[in-house]
């Protein structure tokens, strides 16, 4: 790469980082507003997460006496950096992933666990029993949802590969060839099931009700985050916001990759802007159904219920989705549809 290319890449990464933070906070604000309206409340203004973050950044940063200081302070940084980093590998609107050449969906899957691991490390380093329990629960939760998540990723990529698409794990090819377009009716059902599974994993990834056992306000008083304050807490909040956007972007990229500009002819810059707005709209819709609607309609799960939910029910459902996809590949040529 020439220096100019590197500079361009760096500029893109900086812009994307800003977009990850601002977009994530915006999505959190919309989520809070929508939840409030569903609970017959007015709710905070949509810009509330921005106000909160700015305020947190100005507050005192307390490190508990019995914490491990370097780990305690490093965890939020790692969480924030890794959450933002994921977005470099995911297509946003009509922009292809900036680092797409260096990583695929499997890398995204692994990167998504890093913020959670940082939270666990920070929780254990806090030296508080609440945070320790929260950290244990976060680990268990992570182990629980990784398997169904892998099922979704492999299922989609395998189907694309079976349809003859090269580099099926690369997000460029996934976004360029919507998985719905390569399947027959059986496969559509299978893809839909995988979408439901991925949507059901989202609240756990974002530690939202009913899968927020690791923070569980009424049980653990904030769990993992109980000892965090000031700048460190702000960084975790931002990491959480970025992760919200990233997860929405993953679901959008894998299942709803269409762009407005491919349907309507528009001048270049306008097309970019329209695609970005359309992307945000898709993200809001995805999060509304996967997170907001679920969290206002359910009570919190116990950790053992959470594990059996993911390992047993969701895994079986996900495997059923894969079986449908396989049947689709087999039945497709026979029925003369699909591939």
């Amino acid at each position: 790469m020439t220096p100019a290319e590197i500079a361009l890449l760096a500029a893109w990464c900086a812009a994307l980082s800003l977009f990850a933070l601002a977009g994530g906070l915006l999505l959190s604000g919309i989520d809070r507003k929508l939840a409030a309206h569903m609970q017959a409340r007015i709710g905070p203004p949509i810009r509330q997460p921005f106000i909160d973050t700015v305020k947190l950044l100005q507050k005192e940063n307390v490190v508990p006496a019995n914490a491990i200081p370097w780990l305690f302070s490093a965890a939020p940084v790692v969480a924030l950096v890794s959450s933002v980093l994921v977005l470099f590998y995911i297509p946003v609107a009509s922009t292809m992933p900036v680092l797409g050449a260096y990583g695929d969906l499997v890398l995204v899957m692994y990167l998504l666990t890093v913020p959670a691991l940082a939270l666990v490390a920070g929780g254990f380093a806090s030296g508080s029993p609440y945070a320790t329990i929260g950290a244990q629960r976060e680990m268990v939760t992570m182990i629980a949802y990784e398997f169904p998540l892998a099922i979704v990723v492999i299922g989609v990529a395998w189907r694309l590969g079976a349809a003859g698409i090269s580099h099926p794990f690369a997000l460029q090819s996934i976004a360029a060839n919507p998985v719905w377009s390569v399947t027959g009716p059986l496969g559509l059902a299978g893809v839909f099931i995988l979408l439901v599974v991925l949507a059901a994993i989202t609240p756990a990834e974002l530690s939202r009700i009913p899968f927020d056992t690791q923070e569980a306000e009424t049980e653990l008083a904030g769990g993992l985050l109980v000892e965090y304050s000031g700048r460190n807490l702000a960084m975790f909040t931002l990491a959480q916001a970025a992760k919200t956007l990233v997860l929405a972007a993953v679901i959008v990229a894998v299942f709803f990759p269409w762009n407005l500009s491919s349907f309507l002819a528009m001048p270049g810059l306008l097309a970019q802007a329209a695609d970005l707005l359309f992307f945000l709209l898709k993200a809001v819709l995805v999060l509304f159904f996967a997170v907001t609607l679920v969290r206002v309609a359910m009570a919190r799960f116990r950790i053992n219920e959470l594990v059996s939910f993911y390992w047993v029910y969701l895994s079986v459902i996900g495997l059923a989705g894969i079986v449908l996809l396989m049947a689709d590949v087999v039945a497709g040529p026979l029925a003369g549809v699909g591939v």
Partner: protein
Amino acid sequence: MSGESKKAPYRVPIGPNHPALKEPVMFTFEMEGEVVRDVDFAPGQAHRGIEWMGMRRNPVQIVHLTDRICGICGVVHSLSFSLAVEQIAGIEVPERADYIRTIVHEFERIQSHLLWAGVAAHELGFDSLLYLTWRVREEAMDVIENLTGNRVNYGIVQVGGVRRDIVPEQHAIIEKCLATYEGLLDTLLSFFLDDRTIRMRCRDVGVLSRKDAVELCTVGPTARASGVNVDLRQDYPYAAYGDLDVKAVLPDRYLGETHGDVYDRIVVRLLEVGQSCQIIRQCLSEMPAGPITAEEKLVKLLATCKKATGEGIGRVEAPRGECLHYVRMEGKDSPASWKVKASSYSNLMSWIPMLRGSQIADIPIIVASIDPCLSCTDRVAIVQDNRRSILTKDDLHRLSAEKTRRLQG
């Protein structure tokens, strides 16, 4: 997470201030992984010396002090205290006053149970239900304000009667509120009882066996949910309850079986909301005309109280269970002795069998399930040289024997 750390139990303190607790109490849990192995708790964090204040005031003043014992039970304590004083002074309460007391008392039960249901939903992480129940609770609060002039600390009960009458125009307002609740009850029941997450989190959680419930002398919905057929309104009727047909609400009458768990406590409380509506309706239709107080002139009432000697006990079925006031008058302005036993006092010990063997996740809902009211309960806090000490059973026995001897003169 290794085998070794599982063997070594660790301690988790919860309280005195914790989001799971609406009032201060200090829990110490011995945990094994996510499971509670043992639990100890220390009340006495909200002692305000109400009895000390009361013993320096006259009964007419104390009634309004009793209003402030509890934030929810604005009528229970004042009614209970008034019953005790009326017993001592031989004051005959007019029938109409008894009915008004009953109506306000039942409205209080409705708002208290709805408040509790909202708190329970919040403890389970089901905030939508919290907002819903607290919104419908407002209707009862509005009616209470209309009847008494206050939303909390009603100030409606007076020794010898009540301070406000219910006029015919108010019947329509009460009737409208009752109709709303009766219409809503099925919805509320299905929200709480048919929701799968609530059923999953509450069924067979925090079980209190019938035997434990009896041996620990639990009262109110906590006891009834374990299948103990106790309700002062049915067993020892006071106010207008003698004329009414009140049957204790037991879970097996609704579900056909008794588990004694958190779920059953939800059932009992929600059904009692419906029962209270019926009681109020019956009271409204049968309420006789007449005066609302035995003695309108407070000076004369005070003189009667001052002359009285003897001891009296007022027992009232509060939303949380039996509330008891013991009063002893010796011909002076202020009582010689006044003891308040709030309903939560009898229920706190049931936490221990309920919490043992439960999971951390269940602690908030189990603690909330007896609807603890600690500022009502806390009567004692021993602090000497800035240090708190604990009284053993022997100490308490010695102290109570001394007090009994002192009272016997």
